[in-house]
């Protein structure tokens, strides 16, 4: 009997708890509903005001406090609070307080950004700006319904400086299915800072010249092997598919490039991929490639092999903060480094084609839940950030403390500065990347000097010079991925499955015996097409035929 009562009591408690929790949930749901009606109401009033051609002027500040949420990448650096630091407080003080805006930063994991965003979008807690560096994923966000269309006149009204600088870029590339979907940050690079480091001391030891083609590189690797030095290592290719560029046929048409080039889906069935895999297969079987390259799933594993002297080539986005050179020297004080030209990864039959960024930086959309006031405040934020003096402050900090100006007006960072105004990685880039991708002085010589001091560890400025020189030689071979002006639905449908299959297929094709290669490749090719790639190709082809693709020169 007692047991029964206890049971009943437990049930009662459970029911009460459940009721409270459900009530809580119901509350949340209804408030979401309320906010969505509010935002649709806001949209309709906004539409009305747009028709009238007038927008409320907020230059004197918002009558009621408006909170905007700005995304910022969290790269997981110790001792750095991405959402609350000297610079976020500075923005609040200099911009927010002036217009009665509360600027709230929302951290987004750099390596988990898509997952983070998807979860926040589902919970309706995503920041007012939804951003991504590459077009396919930005299109995915838009297709999910996470972004609202933007009104160009409204941007021009609230962000005149931003609009003056970005208008043509936004109007050219920001449309999707005929709607105004995206706005951008400016990208005006003087060169490409992706750098391939090679062990110059190893080259000297075997008496080899700097390789300038894939074939020459293999000869160098063979000499290294003979001398008992390291191999060439690789990180397992799982995303951002640009591996095939050095093997693209010189006669490839623009339409073919539009069909196959895609950062999100590996063009496994393309001849460039076949050539690439075949070259890698030969390299692997000759013992010149790290025999367990497929275990390097993360960057640190790939880096560790270079630092430990097991491999002699390492590619990275060069920055002054990199520890790869100091770690290598700690292991081997005799190590000397040079930059290897991109052509060393391109077959002699091809050219040193490389992935060239489109003329825009960050791709941004306005959150579908964002109200008219918040939207105005977001545009005002972008406009504040793009003002040269604000941008310079965000990029360099306080003169005399974090940097000093040299005779040419170039900011020289004070590496010993440890105070509260210390900048985060890459000169605070994650805060100003919404308006500009690469800091510049508007003068190429100045920019190069500046890059040498900001991008290379002290004493290695020459690596930047070498990268710059090679880049000038290669410039004609940059290929910008053509942009589809309509969403490719099959791509988001099959990308993850194809990616899993790609890893299996590519590792198998590289590691199999040379005589098995052709049969294996043919077999995987069919499997890849069946797994959804054929549908993607068909969809892309029909978009190419209907002219829904932008070729960028």
């Amino acid at each position: 009997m007692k047991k029964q009562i206890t049971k009943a009591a437990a049930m009662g408690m459970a029911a009460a708890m459940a009721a409270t929790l459900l009530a809580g949930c119901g509350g949340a749901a209804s408030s979401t509903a309320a906010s969505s009606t509010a935002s649709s109401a806001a949209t309709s009033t906004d539409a009305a005001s747009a028709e009238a051609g007038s927008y409320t002027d907020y230059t004197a500040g918002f009558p009621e406090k408006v909170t905007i949420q700005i995304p910022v990448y969290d790269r997981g650096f110790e001792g750095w609070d991405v959402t609350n630091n000297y610079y976020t407080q500075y923005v609040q003080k200099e911009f927010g307080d002036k217009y009665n805006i509360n600027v709230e930063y929302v951290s987004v994991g750099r390596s988990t950004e898509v997952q983070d965003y998807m979860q926040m979008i589902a919970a309706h807690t995503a920041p007012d700006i939804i951003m991504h560096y590459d077009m396919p994923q930005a299109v995915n966000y838009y297709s999910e319904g996470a972004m609202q269309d933007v009104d160009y006149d409204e941007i021009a009204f609230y962000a005149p400086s931003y609009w003056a600088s970005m208008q043509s870029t936004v109007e050219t590339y920001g449309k999707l299915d005929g709607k105004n979907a995206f706005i951008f940050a400016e990208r005006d690079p003087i060169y490409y800072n992706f750098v391939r480091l090679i062990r110059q001391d190893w080259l000297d030891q075997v008496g080899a010249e700097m390789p300038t083609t894939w074939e020459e590189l293999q000869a160098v690797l063979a000499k290294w092997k003979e001398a008992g030095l390291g191999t060439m290592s690789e990180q397992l290719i799982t995303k951002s598919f640009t591996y095939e560029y050095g093997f693209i046929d010189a006669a490839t048409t623009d339409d073919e490039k539009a069909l196959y080039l895609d950062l999100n889906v590996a063009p496994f069935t393309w001849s460039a991929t076949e050539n690439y895999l075949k070259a890698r297969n030969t390299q692997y079987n000759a013992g010149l490639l790290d025999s367990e390259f497929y275990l390097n799933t993360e960057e640190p594993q790939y880096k560790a092999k270079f630092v430990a002297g097991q491999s002699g080539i390492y590619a990275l986005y060069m920055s002054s903060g990199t520890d790869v050179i100091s770690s290598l020297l700690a292991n081997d004080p005799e190590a000397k480094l040079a930059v290897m030209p991109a052509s060393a990864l391109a077959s002699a039959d091809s050219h040193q084609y490389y992935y060239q960024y489109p003329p825009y930086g960050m791709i941004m959309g306005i959150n579908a839940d964002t109200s008219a006031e918040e939207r105005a405040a977001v545009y005002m934020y972008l406009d504040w950030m793009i003002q040269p003096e604000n941008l310079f402050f965000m990029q360099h900090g306080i003169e005399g403390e974090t940097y000093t100006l040299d005779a040419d007006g170039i900011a020289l960072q004070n590496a010993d500065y440890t105070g509260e105004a210390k900048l985060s990685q890459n000169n605070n880039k994650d805060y100003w990347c919404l308006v500009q991708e690469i800091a510049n002085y508007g003068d190429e010589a100045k920019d190069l000097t500046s890059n040498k001091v900001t991008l290379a560890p002290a004493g290695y400025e020459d690596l930047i010079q070498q990268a710059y020189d090679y880049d000038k030689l290669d410039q004609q071979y940059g290929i910008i991925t053509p942009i589809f002006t309509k969403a490719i639905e099959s791509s988001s449908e099959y990308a993850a499955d194809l990616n899993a299959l790609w890893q299996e297929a590519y590792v198998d094709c590289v590691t199999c015996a040379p005589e098995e290669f052709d049969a294996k490749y043919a077999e995987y090719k069919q499997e890849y097409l069946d797994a959804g790639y054929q549908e993607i190709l068909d969809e892309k082809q029909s978009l190419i035929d209907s002219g829904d693709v932008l070729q960028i020169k």
Partner: protein
Amino acid sequence: MSMRATKQKATPAANTLGLHKKGLAFYLKRDWQLYALMLMPLVFVIVFKYMAYGGLSIAFKNYKVAKGYAGSEWVGFKIFEKIFNHRDFGPAVYNTLLLNILDLVFSFPMPIILALLLNEIRVKWFKKTTQTLLYLPHFLSWVVIGSVSLQMFSVNSGVVNTLIANAGHSPIPFLQDDAWWLVTYVAIGVWQSMGWGTIIYLAAITNVNSELYEAARVDGANRFQQCLHVTLPCIRSTIVVLLIMNLGKLMGGSFERILSMSNAKATEFTTTIPVLVYRWGIQSGKFSESTALGLFQSVIGLALVLLSDAIAKKLGEDGLL
């Protein structure tokens, strides 16, 4: 308090009878600390096990994150049709069953054998030390085990293959070849779980009536025969309960165990249902498909538990439910 006192005075012998005349409020008031304590796990179960059920509805919807649960349209069993026709679905079901059946065959009996062996050890300190050493792997996370095993079994630089090479044999691709991967996967699973699994059997063995052993000895049974005819039958119900619980996991299995040991070279057996749920749901944001697959897995799991429970009851055991 006073009520209780009067009652006791009136009928001192009928304390138990008096109980059901008291209201719920009385017990809540008297034992509120106990109820408060119980509330914590209760809330946990409700929030994380029952409230989540609402989300299952997206298995029947074309779920778009920005539209939310309410705003996405119902599509009936379309999502299920889609996943059943997916090229990875068949292999995933096959691999899940294969890995879990292998696990059941090798990992399930090991703790029983080990418990019987440990039970026979008479030197106390040796028994305790052995037990502790056997428990240890249980406390390592699969991520740690996975990365350590990738290091140890590396073909070029792994400790194991260096030893094999030094002994004059060619290295074995423990984790780099499909068939070897399967062997390594199962072996590491046995190593990780066998020690911890013995605890429950050792507890059951302590409960065995010692008179049974005496009787067996009188009948001339040796140590092995005692073990076979006394200990084993006495812990049979424990074994059956654990077996039923394990059968329920046949369609599930540890996701992180596979993910942490998988690599791009040996992929034949690594596409399982939990891995697909992760790939679809977390990696590519196809929440409807992912939920439908998870639901499918759970329904089969429930059916397996009910079936094995029914069979156990037919065989005269207590069963689980």
